[in-house]
């Protein structure tokens, strides 16, 4: 049994879930999620458009990471998104502290899938 592969899959599945759940829950409880957007983003577009457009991006990232194919850039994107959420919501750190762990996991995936001749496990 390839435990390394299983570990990598579990890591990808965990990060993917963190990006799949919010856009789905946002369909039923949008205000709980729109609140995390920084103030300067409110007004760029209607909140619903902003929220669900971002949700589509999240779903794409999640499915791409779950696929395991060339996941360097989606993993980097996931890391940056999570870091941005942390950065713009310090007052909610008691809730979003988990994003630090998820960001570390997605960055780990990015490192494991980084393009290069010596290592490319994506």
């Amino acid at each position, binding site marked *: 049994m390839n435990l390394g592969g299983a570990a990598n899959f579990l890591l990808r599945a965990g990060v993917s879930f963190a990006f799949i759940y919010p856009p789905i829950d946002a369909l039923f*409880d949008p*205000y*709980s*999620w*729109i*609140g*995390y*957007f*920084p*103030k300067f983003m*409110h007004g760029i577009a209607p*909140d619903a458009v902003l929220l669900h457009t971002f949700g589509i991006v999240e779903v794409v990232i999640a499915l791409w990471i779950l696929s395991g194919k060339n996941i360097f850039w989606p993993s980097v994107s996931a890391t940056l998104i999570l870091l941005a959420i942390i950065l*713009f*919501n*310090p*007052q*909610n*750190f*008691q*809730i979003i502290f988990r994003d*630090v762990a998820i960001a570390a996991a997605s*960055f780990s995936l990015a*490192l494991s899938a*980084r393009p290069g001749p010596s290592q490319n496990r994506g």
Partner: protein
Amino acid sequence: MKISSIVWAIIIIAALGLGWYLYFSTSPADSTPSNTATATDNNQNNPQNNAGASSNTAAPTTTTATDNAPNNSQQNAAVPSNAAPMQATVTYGPNGFSPSTVTVKQGGVVTFVNQGDGRMWVASGPHPTHEGYYGTTKNQHCASGYGGPAPFDQCSIGATYSFTFGKTGNWSYHNHVNAGDTGMIVVVP
């Protein structure tokens, strides 16, 4: 070598950032309120003194502000218990809630008024569960049919919202649709 150096650099930066955050993000409740409202002080009995809210229904308690404090002046000192007002008004605008910290007596009413273009949904912290005041979550106390104590939760978007604070303590709140805007209600005996 390079990757491990980058990882260590990120870890160190993250640790420094976390330390900075923890150092500078002392709760307003732990320090002297620097932006404390002194609204009208009327020591009359408040009919909503015990319930902790104006009703026991879970329906959104958006109300019309009618008898609010005429003006929320601000001071830079804690409000003594016997000087705390029974009513206070907090306005919401582009810069968030003002004043950000309000002190009222137990049973006092705080009215939140949206004077900006943004939407307002006042709710107890933490976002997004809102269980800070009574321990019930938003999904519980905002649900139709909820029969418990009225929550410190507007439960919907509205222009004004009033809540009677029947419990002493320091109650953080935020705008549910813009969670970066926060404030604190200090309720003294």
